[in-house]
């Protein structure tokens, strides 16, 4: 239908300034119904600002924000149908768990009987059945998390907003909560905007992710797209571990560009190199799992020496010193690498011919 947008949330050319600082610079983003969208970036990139604009705690200086097709620029927070989870949970300390969760229902004038039922149902959903009468301070961190989630879910919001909700949890709890959140979100088909600076969290949870820096979206895509084909050097180095190597451009055509490093030749996407001449310097971005170790005598990209072994249980990270480059990080599954490549060994580095990315050298 003309004029009817599919997007559950739409940011259209949004700009936000704080004094002299431009927090968001002409940002546009569409989030589909039921989509789990992650805003990822370092602190100061504007991801939290974008979330707050969606929530209504801030108003844009330029551009518009629409929820469910309706422009909400002037709409105050309490009239938007959002559910929000805060970094420190913000559970009302003077209310019981049940009262906390029922708060959003009371503002919507839901009758008491129905309130009680819905509170019970959502507590069961987050696996906290029976905790109605506890106080927040009596709960563990993980339990407070779930109550905060329940409070946001029970009101059936149009969009769920999450502001780094897991940053205060320890690693195991975080992993468990991430899985649970995703399951619940899928079951309910809830449009979700998730803010984090943890790229592994973003990769594991999102349907799509927006990598942001300095007030702009650098790349928007599925986790696979962002990881495999980063669009610029920021995304390449921010998302996932990466090694940056200096190589040379050999040739460019429609199918791709060829980069030379030592005896190795790698095929990379051509877009960054339009108009560049052969032999120009190139920054090659290689993931740790795209490197292989070979005997130093064999033809390879370069040689180096094993500087450190970092045993990680399921895999071994090897750090290799090569002259003329930063220290390399190489990932090897299992633990054979500990024996096969002891400290100080001279090794040759081979790079996968396909799958790397490269950008003109700065």
């Amino acid at each position: 239908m003309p004029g009817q947008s599919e997007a559950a949330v739409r940011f259209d050319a949004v700009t936000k300034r704080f004094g002299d600082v431009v927090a968001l610079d002409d940002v546009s983003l569409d989030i589909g119904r039921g989509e789990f969208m992650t805003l990822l970036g370092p602190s100061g990139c504007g991801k939290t600002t974008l979330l707050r604009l969606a929530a209504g705690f801030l108003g844009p200086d330029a551009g518009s924000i629409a929820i469910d097709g309706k422009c909400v620029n002037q709409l105050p927070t309490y009239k938007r149908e959002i559910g929000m989870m805060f970094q420190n949970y913000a559970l009302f300390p003077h209310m019981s768990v049940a009262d906390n969760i029922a708060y959003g229902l009371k503002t919507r004038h839901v009758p008491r009987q129905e309130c009680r039922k819905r509170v019970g149902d959502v507590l069961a959903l987050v696996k906290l059945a029976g905790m109605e009468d506890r106080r927040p301070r009596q709960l563990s961190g993980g339990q407070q998390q779930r109550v905060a989630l329940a409070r946001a879910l029970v009101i059936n919001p149009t969009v769920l907003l999450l502001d780094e909700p897991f940053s205060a949890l320890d690693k195991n709890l975080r992993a468990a909560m991430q899985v649970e959140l995703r399951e619940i979100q899928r079951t309910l088909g809830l449009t979700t905007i998730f803010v984090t600076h943890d790229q592994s969290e973003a990769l594991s949870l999102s349907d799509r992710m927006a990598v942001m820096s300095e007030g702009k979206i650098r790349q928007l895509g599925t986790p696979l797209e962002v990881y495999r084909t980063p669009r610029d050097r920021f995304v390449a180095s921010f998302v996932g571990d990466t090694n940056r190597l200096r190589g040379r451009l050999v040739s460019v055509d429609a199918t791709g560009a060829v980069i030379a490093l030592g005896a190795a030749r790698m095929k990379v996407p051509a877009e960054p190199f339009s108009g560049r001449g052969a032999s120009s310097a190139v920054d090659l971005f290689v993931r740790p799992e795209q490197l292989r170790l070979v005997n130093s005598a064999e033809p390879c990209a370069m040689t180096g020496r094993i500087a450190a072994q970092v045993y990680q249980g399921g895999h071994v990270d090897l750090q290799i010193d090569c002259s003329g480059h930063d220290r390399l990080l190489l990932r090897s599954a299992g633990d054979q690498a500990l024996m096969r490549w002891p400290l100080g060994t001279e090794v040759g580095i081979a790079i996968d011919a396909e799958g790397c990315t490269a950008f003109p050298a700065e």
Partner: protein
Amino acid sequence: MNQRPFLRSFTAPAALCALGFVAAMAAVLQYSLRAYVPGSLDPGGFTLANFADLLKPLYARVFLDTVGICALTAIATLLVGYPLAYALVRIAHPLLKSALLVVVVTPLFLGEVVRTYAWIIVLGNNGFINSLLRGLGLIDQPIQLMFTTFGVVVALVHVTLPVLVIMLAAALSHIDRDYQRAAESLGAGPIRVFLTVTLPLSMPGVIAGVTTAFAWTFSAFATPQLIGGGRVNMISNLVYQLGFASFNFPFAAALCVAGLALTITVLAILRQAAKPFENIGAH
């Protein structure tokens, strides 16, 4: 080597001060139990007559009046002070905030006499209010504001306001902003957010402020003396009159002791009222 250096030398002066103070209070207690010898500054033998006299309607009335004035002042100060404390905390502009803070804090350091005196000029029959109303043609005869309970309470509220606003502002500022945001995100309008989140979470501060306001007002002397002019008497004024006009120090001392008992009782009651709110704010 002494594990706790300075302990004795640092505690001694304080202990000495404490002893001196206890001695002064004991002196009051002692005098309250001795007879009044008219015409002499020295008290007579031990007796409970002073406390018996306290029960006379004349003095009982002063007690009730004092409690009434203190309670009225404390409540009025709270009603007037809460919006001010809220504004002080919510204002973002640093210059405006500093200016407001200076305006609120300065009266605290002016002393009773200066502030009461200023109110005399405001409330007097030829003072500001009456002149203004006369000038606007609203009244012909001056409204009597001096020497009334109303005048005394207004001035007392003005005197107590800064300290209550400061205590309340401190309490309000420590309430995490995210609670308000969470409430808004759940659909609560501004009034509901205030009534269900901000106000309950500020209760410990409110009770602390009201308690302090009550204790301060009870201690007030210059304000009821100058504005009450003898017609509005609080316990403080009575003590002074008895001591310096009649030289009836024993009875004055008895009044002090009774007044102290009253204050302690009220404070204990307020403390009990604070109990249910004590655990709020714990994260």
